[in-house]
């Protein structure tokens, strides 16, 4: 086949992939709308069903994005920030849909849709969709395992955060006398809240693997496994705060407000590790090997 024709085909695939990402954004907007309506009128079945359908649609569109991107680039699709944001939101929405299917509670879906929709919008408006060549340091088998598993942990933590916020919101509503329960009762809310702990327990080994595989990769590429680079430091901070959260779950008296506060701080640390480090490095003029260009 003529090289120019192949290049044109690539451009077409890129446009289709970009179109799917816009479609997923539209689906996230619909999901936010229906989850909001579900919050207002939890008894209406149509809102419940449509919110989940919209989110499944977003997941399907994003799956197409991820697959097309991987085919086009011939590598895992998480080199640029555009790709990472798409991969992040895809992982989070898939993780959430599994939890919604298992727990039959839709309340966290509102927060997950907001986070994922926001990430996709940032990718669409703030980042270039170019499929750039992979530079030498990233040409390693660690690239897939390190990034994919670290992002899987991020996805799980997004869901854990959404469940935590839903739990706190439900407690607040009960406290001020609102009776809407969204499938949560005083009997089952403890079990619902425990799923935050379970999710963090599930994601923590993956985050650990992400950090340790990053160190092993750095040692293989540059001969230094740890340089206190801002990204490394913040990933360790995130790990420490999640470890702190897990330790607070050991003592019954710390399982309420203290562990909830630490969970929210841990999530903010995770966001800083993912996105804030680039901003931090620019703001303070700190050189970092890990910032997105």
């Amino acid at each position: 086949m003529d090289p120019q024709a192949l290049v044109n085909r690539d451009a077409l695939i890129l446009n289709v992939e970009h179109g799917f990402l816009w479609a997923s954004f539209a689906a996230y907007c619909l999901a936010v709308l229906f989850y909001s309506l579900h919050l207002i009128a939890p008894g209406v079945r149509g809102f419940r069903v449509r919110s989940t359908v919209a989110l499944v649609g977003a997941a399907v569109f994003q799956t197409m994005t991820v697959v097309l991107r991987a085919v086009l680039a011939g590598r895992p699709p998480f080199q640029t920030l555009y790709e990472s944001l798409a991969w992040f939101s895809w992982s989070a929405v898939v993780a959430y849909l599994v939890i919604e299917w298992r727990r039959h509670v839709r309340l966290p879906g509102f927060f997950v849709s907001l986070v994922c929709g926001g990430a996709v919008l940032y990718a669409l408006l703030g980042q270039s969709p170019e499929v750039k060549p992979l530079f030498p340091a990233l040409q390693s088998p660690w690239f897939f395992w390190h990034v994919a598993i670290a992002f899987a942990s991020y996805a799980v933590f997004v869901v854990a955060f959404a469940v935590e916020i839903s739990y706190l919101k439900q407690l607040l509503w009960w406290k001020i006398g609102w009776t809407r329960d969204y499938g949560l009762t005083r009997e089952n809310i403890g079990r619902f809240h425990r799923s935050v702990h379970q999710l963090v327990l599930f994601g923590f080994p993956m985050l650990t693997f992400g950090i340790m595989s990053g160190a092993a990769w750095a040692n293989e590429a540059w001969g230094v496994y740890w340089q206190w680079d801002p990204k490394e430091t913040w990933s360790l901070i995130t790990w420490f705060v999640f470890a702190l959260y897990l330790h607070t779950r050991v003592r019954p008296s710390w399982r309420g407000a203290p562990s909830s506060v630490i969970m929210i701080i841990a999530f903010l640390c995770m966001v800083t590790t993912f996105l804030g480090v680039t901003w931090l490095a620019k703001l303070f003029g700190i050189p970092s090997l890990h910032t997105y260009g």
Partner: protein
Amino acid sequence: MMDTQARAGAHARPGPLKLFLLEFTKLRLTVWLLIVMAVTMVVGSVFPQGYDAAMYVESWGEARHAALARWGLLNLFHTKYFLILGALLFVNLLACSVVRWLGRGGAGLGHAEPPSHAKPVRLPACADPAGRAAGVLAGRGYKILSSSGGVVVARRGPWPEGVSLLYHLALALALVGFILSALFAFEGDVTLAPGEHAAVATVSDETGAHRLATRLAAWRVGSWRPFASLPGDTTAWAGREVTLTLNEFITEWELYREKYYSRDWLSDLSAVGEDGESRRALVEVNRPLRISGLTFYQMAYEQWFDVVVTRNGVEVERVAGQAHTPFALESAAGMFFPGTLRVGTLFEKYHDPVPITPHVPLKWRAPDAEKGTKSEEIGNLSVAEPLVRDGVALAIENPREATVLSYRHDPGVPLLYIAIIAFMAGLAIRTYWPSYRVSLWVTPGEDGAPEGRLLFRAAGILGEPEDIEAELVRGLEAPG
């Protein structure tokens, strides 16, 4: 009963070792250590760490640099404060490991008295209620750990304290690895042009241990110098080296949307180890060469060329050029800023690779330009096509490259890898393999019927502890 009293007495009078362990295994200490270390790291991430003083002075000015340096904020992760925090964490981890090894991790489990939150259970009347309860537990796959003094302790799944011991010990082992790195690691770099040789020593006095030994050797009490013989005779190290020869240096570029991207750079090396072992290897980023305890990494490259200026076909000037190093010419005004020399092989998607005509992108700035003015792109300096400027033609000749390899000796790394594997294994078992532990206290009730108090603990994310506990209680309360 005697056994129970003895154990209760032991709890009342802890010995010094136990007191130490109790202090260092307090959850409160772990929590505070994690908080303080996390906050310290946040501060450390805001300031660039470990750079030359000149860089800080240039960016922030002398006064601000001095203030930050005085507080240790520019090398925070190597200050005594941070090292002490690390040491405390190490002791904390070690103490937790010892306590788990001694089997005291599950507070309340198997103690003489049930804790206040133990759940009441209505046990059916029989001759041996504790023995019957043990039978019920054994029937559900629990291993009975003890059944005496009216207390039944049982477990199902992996030994949680053992697993916890594994990952706490792994973390402690990782800290030992860091210490080994700090004491015995050394590193350096070597630049080689094709055909050149270099010898790299496999031992070095540029290590933390050597510096420590030198300081100890100078330490004296009066005229007594207890460590005077340190750091020992280093002349015996002569000849312990690896010899490297660069056969070829290969650079590859990729063209994407008319821009050049680095694709790969590879050093074709012949190496002879200190034991005479001879090897030939292609070293690239992510593919280092390991020989005689040293690891060589593809780090960077250096590039040079001659800038040739001609007027009407006659050479009027020739200067030595280097990539990313500005130069000036007598025959053309302003300052010239060369970029990276493009040489080697060019790859482009759907095209066959082609050799690159060596060229350097060139920027220029006027002689009277104000400081901070951006330089303008004026084209490429090439071996093939001259760049015309101020009536003269600029070209390059004799483009050449050298590889820059970094090397490192780090005996802490294998320990770290063992620690990583052990830690991940521990975490994975702890998380994904459910483990249940039960303590049941059986006492005679006021009406003669046995009363039970149940403490149920679950670890791991799979399974629903409430359901399993409820099913167990039903089994224990069932008559017959």
